[in-house]
C-alpha cells in the first residue's frame, strides 16, 4: 500500500510543483505588463525635463496639477456626473438584463442585440446627432415642441449637466450594462426564483431579494467598470460641457496631453487619482463579496425556465422596445445621415447631400490595409486575450494559489491609468524592454497593448461567471476518470462559453474602436480603421470620420452577430 502511495504522492507533488510554477509564471507576466506602465506613469509625473533633454525630477507637475484653476469644480463635476449616470444606468441595466435573460418577454434576442449595438456606436457622431435634436436654439425636438401652444421656451438643453448624462446613457452606458449582466443572469438556476415565487414573493420582489444579491459579483464588476470608465470619459464632455464651462477631470488631462509640447507630468499626477479611486472601489468590492457563496450552477440539474410576465408582458415589451429604439435607431439614423452630408448637421446649406464622403473614403488606398490590420489586431487580441483572462480567472477562483489575491488585484491595474495616458505608458514600456523591441512597429505590439488594456474587463467578467459554477461538476468529471484538461474542455468551457464569447466580443470591439492605446504604437503600415477615423477627425473632416464610424459599426456588428450565433450553438442551451 505504502509502496504504491509513495509514487502517487511524488507524481502529485510534481504536478503541484508544475502547476505552481505555471501559476507563478502567470503572476510574473501579469505583474510585469501591468506594473511597469503604472510605475513609469508615476515616475514620469515627477519628470520635469522636455523631450530630448536630460532627466530632471521634481514636484512641479503635482503642484501644477492640483493648483490649476478650476480643478476642484472639475473634480466635483466628474464625480457627480459619473454617479448620476451610473446610478440610473445600473438600475436600468439590471432590470433590462433580467427582462431579456430571465423573463418571457418577446424578441428578447433581437432586443438584446439592439442594446449591444448602442455600445458599438462611436460617441462623437452620436453626440452631434443628439445636439441636432436637443440644442436649445436649433434642436429639432425643441423646435417641434415650441409649436405647441403651452410651451414658450425650449424645454431641452443638451449643453447642460443632464444633457451630458442623457448623451452618455443613450450612447453606451446602458448598453454595456446589458452586455455584461445578461450572461450572468442567464447562468442562474431558475429554481431559486421559483422557490421565491412559491413562497409568495412577486416578480419584482424576487428580483430585489433573490436575484440581485445572487448576481452581486457581476453587478459589482459592471458598477466598477462603469465608474472607472465614467471618470475617464471625455469625448461627450468636451463637446457638451466645455462650451458651457462644465470641465471634468478627463478634459483637464486631455488639455495637458494635447498641449504643445505636451505637459505629461501634471497629466500623470492628475491620473494618480484614478489609482486611488480604483483602490477604494476594490476594497468596497472585497467587503461586499467577501467570502460569500455565489454558486448558482451546481451538479443538481439546472433549470433555465423563464419567469412569466403575465399581464405586464405587452406593456413592458413596448417600454423596452422604445428604449432600444432611442439608444440605437435614433443615433444610427443620424450617423448614417452624417455620411451623406456636405457638412454634418447643416441641413440649411444649398444641396446638403453628397456621395463624395463615401467615394473619397472608399477610394483611399490605405482603407484595405487598415481593414486588414484591424481584423488581425482585433481577432488576435480577442483570441489570445480570452485564453489569458480565463487562465487568470481560473487561478483566482478555482485554485488555492497563495498569491491569487495579488493576481486578482493586478488584473485590475490597467484601469488605474486613464485611456488617454495608457498609450504613452505602454510606449515607454515597450521601448524600454528589450524583448518588445523586435516587435515594435508590427501589429503584434498593438495586440499586446489591447490585451493589456482589456485585462480588467476580460478577467473580471469571466471570474464573476466562474464564481457561479459549483465544484461538484468538476469533481464529478474527475471522479469519472477525466483529466484536468478534459474536465476544463468538456465541463468548464461549455458552461463558460457565453461569457467567453462576450469577453471575446468585448476585446474585439475594444480593439476595433480603440484610439488612445494604439495611437503612439501604430505605424503607417499598421494603421487601424479607428486611427484612420482619428486622422479624418483631427483635420476637421467629421463627415469622412463618420463614414469610418459607420464602417466600424458594420464591422463590429457583423462580429457580434457571428459571436451570438456561435455562443448560442456551443454554449448552454435552454
Amino acid at each position, binding site marked *: 500500500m505504502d509502496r504504491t502511495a509513495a509514487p502517487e504522492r511524488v507524481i502529485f507533488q510534481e504536478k503541484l510543483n508544475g502547476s505552481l510554477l505555471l501559476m507563478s509564471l502567470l503572476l510574473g507576466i501579469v505583474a510585469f505588463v501591468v506594473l511597469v506602465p503604472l510605475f513609469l506613469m508615476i515616475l514620469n509625473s515627477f519628470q520635469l525635463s*522636455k*523631450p*530630448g*533633454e536630460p532627466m530632471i525630477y521634481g514636484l512641479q507637475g503635482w503642484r501644477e496639477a492640483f493648483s490649476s484653476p478650476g480643478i476642484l469644480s472639475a473634480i466635483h463635476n466628474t464625480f457627480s456626473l459619473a454617479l448620476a449616470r451610473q446610478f440610473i444606468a445600473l438600475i436600468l441595466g439590471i432590470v433590462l438584463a433580467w427582462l431579456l435573460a430571465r423573463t418571457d418577454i418577446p424578441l428578447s434576442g433581437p432586443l438584446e442585440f439592439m442594446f449591444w449595438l448602442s455600445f458599438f456606436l462611436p460617441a462623437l457622431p452620436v453626440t452631434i446627432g443628439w445636439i441636432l435634436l436637443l440644442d436649445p*436654439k*436649433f434642436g429639432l425636438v425643441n423646435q417641434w415642441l415650441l409649436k405647441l401652444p403651452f410651451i414658450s421656451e425650449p424645454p431641452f438643453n443638451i449643453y447642460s449637466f443632464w444633457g451630458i448624462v442623457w448623451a452618455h446613457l443613450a450612447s453606451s452606458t446602458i448598453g454595456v450594462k446589458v452586455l455584461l449582466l445578461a450572461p450572468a443572469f442567464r447562468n442562474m438556476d431558475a429554481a431559486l426564483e421559483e422557490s421565491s415565487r412559491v413562497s409568495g414573493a412577486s416578480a419584482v420582489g424576487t428580483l430585489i431579494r433573490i436575484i440581485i444579491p445572487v448576481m452581486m459579483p457581476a453587478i459589482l464588476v459592471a458598477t466598477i467598470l462603469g465608474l472607472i470608465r465614467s471618470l475617464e470619459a471625455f469625448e461627450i464632455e*468636451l*463637446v457638451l460641457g466645455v*462650451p458651457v464651462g462644465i470641465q471634468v477631470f478627463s478634459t483637464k488631462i486631455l*488639455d495637458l496631453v*494635447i*498641449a*504643445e*509640447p*505636451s505637459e505629461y507630468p501634471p497629466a500623470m499626477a492628475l491620473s494618480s487619482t484614478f489609482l486611488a479611486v480604483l483602490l477604494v472601489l476594490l476594497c468596497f468590492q472585497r467587503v461586499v463579496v467577501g467570502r460569500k457563496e455565489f454558486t448558482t450552477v451546481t451538479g443538481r440539474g439546472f433549470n433555465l425556465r423563464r419567469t412569466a410576465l403575465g399581464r405586464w408582458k405587452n406593456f413592458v415589451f413596448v417600454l423596452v422596445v422604445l428604449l432600444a429604439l432611442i439608444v440605437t435607431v435614433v443615433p444610427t439614423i443620424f450617423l448614417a445621415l452624417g455620411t451623406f452630408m*456636405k*457638412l454634418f*448637421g*447643416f441641413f440649411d*446649406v*444649398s444641396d*446638403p447631400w453628397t456621395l463624395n464622403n463615401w467615394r473619397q473614403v472608399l477610394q*483611399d*488606398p*490605405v482603407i484595405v490595409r487598415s481593414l486588414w490590420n484591424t481584423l488581425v489586431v482585433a481577432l488576435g487580441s480577442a483570441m489570445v486575450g480570452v485564453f489569458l483572462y480565463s487562465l487568470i480567472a481560473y487561478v483566482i477562483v478555482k485554485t488555492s494559489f497563495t498569491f491569487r489575491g495579488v493576481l486578482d488585484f493586478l488584473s485590475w491595474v490597467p484601469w488605474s491609468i486613464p485611456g488617454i495616458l495608457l498609450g*504613452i505608458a505602454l*510606449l*515607454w514600456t515597450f*521601448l*524600454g524592454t528589450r524583448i518588445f*523591441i523586435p516587435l*515594435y*512597429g508590427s501589429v503584434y505590439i498593438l495586440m499586446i497593448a489591447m490585451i493589456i488594456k482589456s485585462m480588467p474587463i476580460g478577467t473580471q467578467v469571466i471570474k464573476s461567471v466562474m464564481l457561479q459554477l459549483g465544484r461538484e461538476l468538476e469533481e464529478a468529471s474527475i471522479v469519472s476518470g477525466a483529466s484536468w484538461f478534459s474536465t476544463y474542455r468538456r465541463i468548464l468551457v461549455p458552461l463558460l462559453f457565453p461569457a467567453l464569447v462576450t469577453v471575446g466580443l468585448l476585446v474585439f470591439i475594444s480593439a476595433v474602436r480603440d484610439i488612445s492605446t494604439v*495611437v*503612439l504604437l501604430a*505605424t*503607417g*503600415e499598421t494603421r487601424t480603421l479607428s486611427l*484612420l477615423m482619428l*486622422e*479624418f477627425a*483631427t*483635420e*476637421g*473632416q*467629421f*463627415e*469622412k470620420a463618420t463614414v469610418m464610424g459607420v464602417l466600424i459599426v458594420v464591422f463590429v456588428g457583423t462580429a457580434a452577430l457571428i459571436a451570438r450565433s456561435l455562443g448560442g450553438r456551443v454554449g448552454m442551451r435552454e
Partner: protein
Amino acid sequence: MVRSYKRHKMVVCVTAAAILFLGFSQKSWGASQDKWKEVVEAGKKEGKVVVSIPASSELRKQLEEVFEQRFPGINLELFPGTASKMLRRISDEFQAGVRYFDIHIGGAGSMITGFVGGNIVDPIEPNLVLPEVKEPKNWWGGHMAIDKEKRFTYTFSAFLVSNFWHNTKSASAEELRSYDDLLNPKWKGKIGWYDPRQPGAGAQAWEFLWKHKGEDYLKRLVTQDLQLSRNPRVLAESLAREKLAVTIGINYYGFRSFVEAGMPLKALPIFKEGTYGTAGSGILAIIKNHPHPNATKVFVNWLLSKEGQEVWTKEVSQPSRRWDVDGTRWSRSRQIMRQRRTRRRKARVASYPIEAEY
C-alpha cells in the same frame, strides 16, 4: 580688317567661353545626375522612407501616389498627426535607440522647442542633391531655416497670414478694419480664438498683437470674453452657426468644407495695421541617424522639387517659396497670394518676418 579681326577674336572668345561654360556645367550637371541615380538606386535598396506630416488625409494620399509613381520601389510611409504627438513619439524612440522615422514636416513651434532643442535632427544641406533644389536663386529669399544655426531645418513655404475670419451675416468686413475694432462691445462673447496657449496660428496671432498693439490691448481684448478652443472644427462650426462673429487663428484649410458648402464665411481683408508672414506647416527636419538615408535624400529632393512643391501647395493651401510654383493656381486665398506676388516684385526680402519669429 582690324575691326573684323577683333570681331572674329571676340566671337572665338565668346564661343570658347560658352563651350567651356557648357562643358563645365554639363559636366557638373552630369555629375549631379550620376549622383542622383546612385542615390535613387540605393534608396530602392532601402525600400522605404518614413515621414511624419501634418494631419491631412488628402496630403497623405497625393504625396504617396505621386512619389511612388515617380520612384517605384521606394515605399513612402506617411504618418499624419499633430506635432506634439509626433514629437513625443520620435523623441522617446530616439532615447530608446529605436530608429523608425526619417523625416518630420510641421510647424515652427515644436520644430524649434522639440526637434532642434532636443538635438534629435541632422543637418539638411548634405541631403540636397538635385541642382534645382540646391540652387538658392530658385527659392524666394534663397535657402531659409528657422533654427539659429540655419542647418537643421528647411523652410519651403512662406505666406502672409490671413487667419481672421468672419461670418458675413453677423459681422460685416467694414466693421472690422482695424485691430481696435475687435474691442467694440458689440463683439463681446462673439470672438473665437484658436487657443493661443499652445504653439500654432493662434499663438502667432497673439504674439503679433502683443508686439504691435501691446499688452494693454490684449488685456482689453480678453475682457471681450474670448471663446478659446483647441479644435478648429468646433470654432468653424460656431462661426457657421453664428454663435461667433469672428475667429482668430484658423486659416482657409480649417474652413474649406464650410466655404465649399456655401456657408457665408470669409477671411477679413488685412487690417490697416498690417499682418505677418509665416511658414505654416512647411518646415522640414531630418531625424538624427535616420534608418533610410538614401530614400530620405530621394524624398527630400523630390519634395523640394517643382513637382513635390506643387503637390504640397495644392493639398495644404500654403504657398511654396519656389519661384516656379504658382500657388495662385491652387490657393483659395487669392488675395493673399496676389499680395505675396506684389511683394515678390518689390523684392523686399529683408523685411520678411519669417525668421523674426525666433
